[in-house]
């Protein structure tokens, strides 16, 4: 036990003396959460819209005021003619132009109908769709308002769509679980595989092998510090997502932490496995990045829904551990599900961990060849 603790102490010293390691451990997770949370936001916030109001009456003022005060949009320009539309869209700041036809207000009152066009910048399809959807929603809202005041008692069926679990469809409630999944597997697997291959490359493994340390002690000694640090990472990310984005954990936090530990353990054992098949640090880094990071981003359902993929990828993603964890963590964080609904995924992760550890211990060489 003393030997083991001595080994762990040594590992911690390696980690805390290497600023790059520390940065990868803590800098990247924080940066990624912020990047995914803010920059790559799928929500609209202060998107630039230009108004071309050919009518200038009470109704158009009121409606454009409602659109602009929604918080989703901010006015980027007031246009005077159709000719300016192309120009203002090309500048890029304006994502859409809202055009009120001539005599908008009068028509609405007289004929009960008036037209409004939304011209969106289709070169950013995602934003364009969001902008038009949001605007349409606001206009519909407005419709109901005036209709309500004009025809008090008229019966009307208004569909009201409600999003469960993520009522505002905030995208960071999707990204936070994704980032945790990505970061844990990356940090844990990459770091352990690199630190073990480093000993091989620097020749210190030779001395460790000739020492009375058992393979299990070497492996556990390598893994323990990263287990602790990765767990701290989870806590930091959860705290950040709560403090910065106001995203609470709906389900049991204990269950979430326990599942995270399992996932960290799985990633670490994957890292050990990588280190047993690679003899240089470069090789280990390559395998971890190409073999783990890309599939995690592409095939885990983190960004692209698995249901929309060709069947081949769907099957391929079955062997990707992140796929299971993402289901688990989304369930607990956003839906508040309990173990009852995620026991299958949990079981798969446990199985994977056992297999990885088993192979690693068997493949760990007690000699140099």
């Amino acid at each position, binding site marked *: 036990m*003393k*030997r083991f*603790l*001595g*080994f762990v*102490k*040594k590992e911690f*010293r*390696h980690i805390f*003396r*290497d600023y790059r390691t520390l940065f990868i451990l803590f800098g990247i997770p924080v940066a990624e959460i912020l990047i995914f949370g803010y920059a790559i936001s799928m929500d609209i916030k202060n998107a630039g819209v230009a108004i071309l109001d050919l009518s200038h009456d009470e109704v158009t003022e009121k409606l454009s005021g409602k659109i602009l005060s929604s918080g989703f949009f901010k006015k980027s320009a007031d246009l005077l003619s159709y000719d300016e539309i192309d120009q203002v869209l090309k500048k890029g700041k304006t994502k859409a132009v809202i055009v009120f036809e001539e005599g908008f207000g009068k028509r609405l009152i007289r004929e009960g109908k008036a037209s409004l066009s939304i011209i969106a910048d289709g070169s950013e399809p995602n934003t364009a769709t969001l902008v038009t959807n949001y605007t349409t929603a606001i206009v519909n809202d407005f419709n109901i308002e005036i209709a309500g005041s004009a025809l008090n008692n008229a019966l009307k069926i208004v569909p009201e769509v409600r999003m469960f679990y993520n009522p505002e469809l905030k995208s960071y409630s999707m990204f936070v679980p994704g980032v945790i999944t990505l970061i844990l597997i990356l940090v844990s697997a990459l770091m352990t595989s690199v630190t073990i291959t480093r000993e091989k490359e*620097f*020749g*210190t493994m*030779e*001395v*460790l*092998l*000739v*020492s*009375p*340390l058992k393979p299990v002690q070497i492996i556990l000694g390598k893994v323990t510090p990263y287990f602790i640090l990765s767990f701290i990472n989870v806590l930091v990310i959860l705290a950040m997502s709560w403090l910065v984005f106001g995203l609470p954990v709906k389900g049991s936090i204990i269950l979430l932490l326990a599942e995270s530990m399992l996932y960290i353990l799985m990633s670490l054992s994957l890292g050990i496995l990588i280190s047993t098949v690679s003899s240089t640090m470069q090789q280990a880094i390559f395998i971890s990045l190409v073999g783990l990071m890309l599939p995690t981003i592409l095939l885990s359902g983190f960004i692209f829904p698995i249901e929309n993929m060709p069947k081949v990828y769907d099957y391929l993603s079955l062997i990707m551990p992140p796929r299971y964890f993402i289901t688990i963590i989304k369930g607990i964080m956003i839906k508040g599900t309990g173990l009852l609904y995620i026991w299958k995924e949990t079981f798969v992760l446990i199985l994977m961990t056992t297999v990885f550890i088993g192979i690693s211990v068997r493949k760990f060489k*007690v*000699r*140099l*060849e």
Partner: protein
Amino acid sequence: MSVVVQASGLSKKFGQTAALEDISFSVNESEIFGFIGPDGAGKTTLFRIITTLLLPDSGEIKVLGLDGTRNFKELRMEIGYMPGRFSLYQDLSVEENLEFYATVFGTTIEENYYLIKDIYSHIEPFKKRLAGKLSGGMKQKLALSCALIHKPKLLVLDEPTTGVDAVSRSEFWDMLSRLREYNITVIVSTPYMDEAMRCDRIALIQNGKLLAVDTPTVVKNEFRRKLFSIRSAEKHKLIIALRSLDETISSFPFGESVHVTFKNDRLPDNLDLSLRERGISDASITETESGIEDRFLELIQTTEHQTA
């Protein structure tokens, strides 16, 4: 006196190349046993077999009475190993390195401090310095301290003095000599012939084969020819000139001069003249005493003749 290492018929191949061929030797308790040979002779492979890091393809080896294949765990408790490359943790300080190895072997620095005191005291003033920032000589002293801290019965040092300055080398060997008092057996390899004289027994190794095993004096004295040392400003030209003479048996560069043997153990008649004809006018010739290197080169030459 008991036998610490008993090896017979060790062979090891890496792919098609034979790293070791039919190696047999034995090392006695408390002796300093040196393997002398150039780079690529097979010393490192042999040491890795002794330290259980590699298994031989054929042959048997017993270290401290234990079988390296089956009892490697027990054996690893008793061995101190210092690989050829500097293999300490560069980002840990001197003291932390030593402490780590002490803990790993289940001991403490204090417990065996007397063993390493001589050598560790040289680097102790720098104990807070990172190992990566030490000079070559200090690194080796630290590595030796780390290999010794658990009081091993057998110390295996692979080229411990390569890349170390002359003064540090000498100190290093003084230290090794003192380990006899503690009954620690030392197996050491070196490419430096001058260090061979400081071993109790040596084995000359070349191309994976042992050429001779004996005390340095016996090995040295097996060189029975008269040896001449010839100096010239143009050493390379001199060697070519000497090799073109019929009477020359061997001529090898040796430091500043060239060591030469002639047929009938005497200088050829008109050597001066013959050299002058070949463009060497400043040759100064003296008879000299042979060293281990001369015997080594002679052995290499004879084995090459046999195989050729």
